[in-house]
Structure formats: C-alpha cells, structure tokens
C-alpha cells in the first residue's frame, strides 16, 4: 500500500505532502501526486517520527488476562508508537533466549509495532546471578536492553558485573532504582501526605542512593547505564552531575510522573498506586525541567496493565502500576509542549530519537526525510478529549487519567509504510 499524506506539518513546521512507498518515505514536497496511493488528508496535523517506548509491560506470557502482546501493541500504535521495549518481568521471566524469542515472535505476528524484548539481568529477577545475557543478545530478538525492572539490582557487585558484561554486545542495563531495605512495605511517597494517610513511605533517598551508586559504577567501568522512571528532584540533580562528568548515563521519566502527584493517594483509589510512587509538586517541576534540558533523555511509559481484581481492593493489597501507552503523547503535549518547554522537535527527540538510540534500534528514531523508514505518526494537537478507560485498546482499565481532559489526538500511525492507525482507529 502506498500512502500520500497531504498537508501535514513535520515537527509542526511548514505543511508538506509525504509519499510513503515500499516502507520508506519516498518523497516530501508540495502538491505531490501519486497514482493509486491512498490519500490521507492531514491539514493541521503534526507529523512526528514514530514513538519508541523503552518501558512497556505487555504481560505475555503469564498474565494474558491483563494484557497480551497483541492488545498492548494495539494500545501502543494508537498512542503513536512504532516500537516498544517489552519488560522482562513476565511469567516465565524473560531471562533466556527462548522467552525473549517468544515475545519477539508474538510481536511480529501482531504486526502493530516492533516489540523489542528486554532481557532480565538476573535469573528469575532474583538478583543473585546473571542470566545468559549474551544468549539473549545473540538470539533472533537481538536484545540490547537488560533490566530486572520491578526489582532493583541492589547488590552492588552484581550490578558492576552486569554493567561490564553487556559492553561486549553494546548492551545497556536499565536499572529500577530502589534500595529495597529502605522501601520494605512502602505504599507511597514518604512525606507530609504519607504521614497523615498512615501509609508506609517510599523515601526519595531510596531512589537517589541507587542512582548515585550506579553512576559511579558506570563511570568506573566505562559502561552504559540507563535509569528507569526517574521520579525525584534529587535524582535529576545526580544525573545532571553524572552527565557533566562524562558518565554514559541516560534516563527516562514516565508520563504520570510528569503530571500527577502524591495528592492522588488521598482518594485511596489504588489506580494511583505505582512504583516508584507519585511524588510532590516540586519533583514534578524538576522532572519537567530535566526533560526540557535533556538531563532526562526520554519519556518511558512504564505502561503496566493490571486486571480489575488487582486494583479494586485496599490500597496496600493492590498491585502497583498504571496504563500509559495511549495517553503518553497527550500528557507530554499538556505538560511540555503547551507550556512551551519542548517544541515538536524536542518531542521527537525525547520520545523517538533518543529512546531508539538507547535501545540501539536502527530502523526507528530516524528523521522525517526522504529515504528513511516510514515510521511516523500524525497528531491533531488541538483536539481535546476526556479519557474513558472503557474505550482503551489495552485489555486492562487502570488508567490514572480516567475522566481527565487531555490535549492531542493521534490520528494515524505508520509502521514501515503500513498504516497501523487511521482516523484514530487501529487498522487491525
């Protein structure tokens, strides 16, 4: 199928036509014409390179009642993503070549986004001995990002070895920074609100201590480190310092940490329970500033679907995590674009170019230019809508944005020239 996109504004700049042919951007210009091409009217829409998520939980294998590779892929496509990194904390854990190849194959079959498996750092996520990282790197899934996400690689010696070992295949360890001894039983950010709600606190220092340790280790052994879901102002400061010293560290922030605060816990609705927890207004401000100045490289959704029964409970019994794929871009528009802190090129950089680079994906995060892979999205930045969890493509309903009006509607997404989303609807 050939598509002719009429009048879209790449990066929000001058309107042009884009011809997508044979999986590539075949031409960019004004008044383009092409026989037999399906025309997509895109006046007023902004074109961006397809988004890349470094942090998605697709739940398959193991919790297909909460999400499958297919339903999660559809949610991703609707959010404007063309590639997602599927976290390793499945059941069985993605700690062998067999499991990562299974996830990779399921992604290919769904065909809505490129599903890029993340490999576990340690066997069974137990933090005791390294998984066969090389086997996963050499597998058909070509794993480059390794993470025990959900658990911190808290043993400093093991973390050092993991950082060193993955250098052999240009891998990166994505750390879930949480000192477990400081967060036993933790339910929410430790501060004024946890004190009055009587919920066990998750201190900012538990995240910052691990990030500080890990940037020192990464600097010492000359390895790449990626920090998952940075949530505190102190973490941003440590990252800024580490980058100024030349440490090869990258970091991501979630959409929910850019928008929501620990005040949400006062509703007692566990849809707002997440790990790391929602923090304070000051942290939100520091995260936005960090994303704006590039200290934080990327937006990672930490899309974490949960079955109804795992959320419709007491706060302490509920599982942590919230949906993110379908609203990620809208949240970035609201928190970063509309206030003028990031332009569309900046959005493309933080949500496509840099995450693709961190994951070493060659076909994604490419500029909108002739000859490049036709991975792109069209967004109507002026549309506003109220989030209805029942209308989401995810199999789960745990959206923290339910009932909230957000700007921006993804109208179309193209994966290597094929439309995965048209008119705001998934094509398959």
């Amino acid at each position, binding site marked *: 199928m050939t598509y002719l996109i009429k009048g879209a504004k790449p990066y929000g700049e001058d309107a042009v036509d884009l011809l997508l042919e044979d999986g590539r951007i075949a031409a960019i210009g004004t008044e383009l014409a092409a026989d037999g091409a399906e025309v997509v009217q895109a006046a007023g829409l902004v074109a961006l390179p397809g988004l890349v998520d470094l942090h998605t939980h697709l739940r398959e294998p193991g919790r297909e009642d909460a999400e499958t590779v297919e339903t999660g892929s559809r949610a991703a496509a609707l959010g404007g993503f063309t590639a997602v990194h599927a976290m390793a904390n499945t059941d069985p854990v993605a700690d062998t070549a067999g499991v990562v190849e299974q996830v990779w194959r399921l992604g290919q079959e769904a065909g809505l986004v490129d599903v890029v498996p993340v490999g576990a750092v340690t066997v069974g996520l137990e933090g005791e001995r390294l998984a066969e990282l090389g086997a996963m790197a050499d597998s058909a899934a070509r794993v480059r990002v390794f993470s025990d996400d959900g658990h911190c690689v808290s043993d400093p010696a093991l973390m050092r070895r993991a950082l060193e070992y993955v250098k052999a295949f240009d891998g990166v360890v994505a750390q879930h920074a949480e000192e477990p001894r400081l967060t036993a039983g933790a339910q929410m950010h430790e501060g004024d609100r946890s004190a009055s709600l*009587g919920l066990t606190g998750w201190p900012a220092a538990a995240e910052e201590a691990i990030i500080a340790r890990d940037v020192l280790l990464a600097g010492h052994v000359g390895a790449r480190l990626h920090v998952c879901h940075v949530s505190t102002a102190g973490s941003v400061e440590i990252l800024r310092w580490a980058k100024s010293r030349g440490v090869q560290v990258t970091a991501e922030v979630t959409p929910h940490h850019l928008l929501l605060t620990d005040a949400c816990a006062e509703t*007692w609705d566990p849809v707002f329970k997440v790990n790391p927890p929602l923090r304070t207004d000051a942290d939100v401000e520091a995260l936005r500033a960090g994303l704006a100045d590039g200290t934080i490289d990327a937006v990672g959704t930490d899309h974490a679907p949960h079955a109804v029964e795992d959320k419709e409970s007491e706060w302490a019994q509920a599982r942590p995590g919230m949906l993110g794929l379908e609203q990620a871009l809208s949240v970035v528009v609201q928190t970063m674009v509309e206030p003028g802190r990031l332009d569309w090129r900046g959005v493309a950089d933080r949500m496509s170019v840099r995450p693709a680079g961190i994951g070493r994906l060659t076909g994604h995060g490419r500029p909108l230019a002739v000859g490049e892979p036709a991975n792109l999205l069209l967004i109507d930045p002026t549309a506003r809508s109220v989030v209805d969890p029942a209308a989401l493509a995810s199999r789960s309903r745990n959206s923290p944005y339910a009932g909230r009006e957000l700007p921006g509607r993804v109208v179309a997404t193209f994966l290597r020239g094929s439309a995965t989303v048209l008119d705001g609807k998934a094509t398959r």
Partner: protein
Amino acid sequence: MKRHLLEVADLDRADATLVLDTAAQIDQALAGREVKKLPTLRGRTVVNLFYEDSTRTRISFELAAKRLSADVINFSAKGSSVSKGESLKDTALTLEAMGSDAVVVRHSASGAPHRLANWVRGSVVNAGDGTHEHPTQALLDAYTIRRRLGRLEGVRVAVVGDVLHSRVARSNVGLLHTLGAEVTLVAPPTLLPVGVRSWPAEVSYDLDAVLPKSDVVMMLRVQAERMNASFFPSAREYSRRYGLDAPRMAALPDDAIVMHPGPMNRGMEIAAEVADSVRSTIVEQVANGVSVRMAVLYLLLGGSPQ
C-alpha cells in the same frame, strides 16, 4: 453529620461537639436504669466487619448497637469466606445484599473503610484502619477529657509513644485540634513520621520537659518487637526514656490525667502503679467508649434518644 465516619476530618467542630453532647445525653438517660437499653435503632442492622482481631473494640461497638436495640451481626475475617480469599468488594456487596444499615469496619490496611464506602449504600464507621485513623477512639478520648477536666479548649495534651504506627495518635491530633486543645507529640525521632511537622501539633523528643506542662498524658501502646527493626535499641531503654512511671507522674500538674487506649504493656510504656492510680482514666475510657459509639451510630442512622 456526613453519612460515614471514616476519619476525624469528617467532623467539624459542631459535629464533634454534637457527638460528645449526644454521648452525655445517652449517659444521662441510662444512668441508674436497670435496663440499659434504648429503642432508637430497633429494626436496623449493624454489621461489625472485623478483619483484625480486636476484642475490645468489637465488644464496645456490639454493646453500643445492642443498647440502641439494633440487630448486630459480627462478621469476623477469621474463619469466614474472607480467609478463602474473598475480596473486600465482594464482602461489601454481600453485606449490602443482606440489607445492612451500617458497617463498622476494622482492617489492617489504611484506607480500607474509604474503599468500602464506595461499595455500600449504608453508613461506614471506621473502627481502626491500619496506621491511619481510629476516629471513635479519639471521640471517646475527647469525651473522657471533657468529663474529667470540664473543657477541651486550651487543654494541653501530650501524646507519647509510637506515633508513626498509631492510628490513635493520628485521629487524636486531628480531633483535639478541631476541638481547640493543644497537642504535643512525644516520641523518639524514629517513631515519628517524616512529615509530622505538617501536623497541627508540637513535637518533642523529651518527655520530662513536656510533663510539667501537660493536663493530659496519653500513652500509646509500643510493641517491643519494634526494637528488631531498630526503632529503638531495647525495651528497657525505651521504657527509661519514654515510659511513664511514678516519679514522672509526680512531675505532672495536680489535676492532670493519664490515658491509654489499651491494651497496655505494663512495664513498657506505662508502669503498673501509674495505670492503677487515681489519675488514670483507662477504665473510664472503656465505659465512655460504649456511650460515644452509641452516639455515633445514633447520629449516623437517625432516631431520637429517649
């Protein structure tokens, strides 16, 4: 009054005073009666939903409901379908289908009564949720102080002990502040929550400095096992620094009273001679608990005290 009593913030000063006044009326109405029973809630059903063992609180609520002639059902998590994994929501829907008018809930999870209130039409009364709140305990404590000292406005209350893990402390700080009392929290820094400075209370680490300036000393239960998580070095050291013994009691002003929500650890946070002294209101608190809970059930469920 709101429909539920989930936390002391549900009560403004007028509401809280109404509860205390109603409890006083009930005490008066029942004083000297042979049959300690009012017909107010005849035909209404009160469910005691207890996910945590608490014999004293459950009995107090049970007695309160029965003295108002309500039908009382005790639903204990132990040995019920709950232990087979039934969710709080399903239990709530079951109680709802059976037509309960009020659910009195005790739960180890903070916020569980708030969740429950989403799923039932009747009133929910928080009988203690995790480390969050225990509003009827605060009401009975306020009632006890008012009876003993004749007022609450300007009364200086020291709350001493494991504030971090105490729902009693959280409810008392809020309610006493609403009623015009001045609260000072006294504890080792490890047993105070980060964020305590945002509470409407003074904070001190020094019990001996606070006692001479206190009209009320409220001792909180301290579990000796906390020393295993390094909240304090040993039970002995805790007792030496924060326990209320006879010499410390002597430092109190003449009319000052000593309170404890129970159950006590005699010899840990409170010495036996203090617990059994004339200053102690511990037994009175138990009796007042029934009256205050009657007042709460009556005000939430309607009717008029005879």
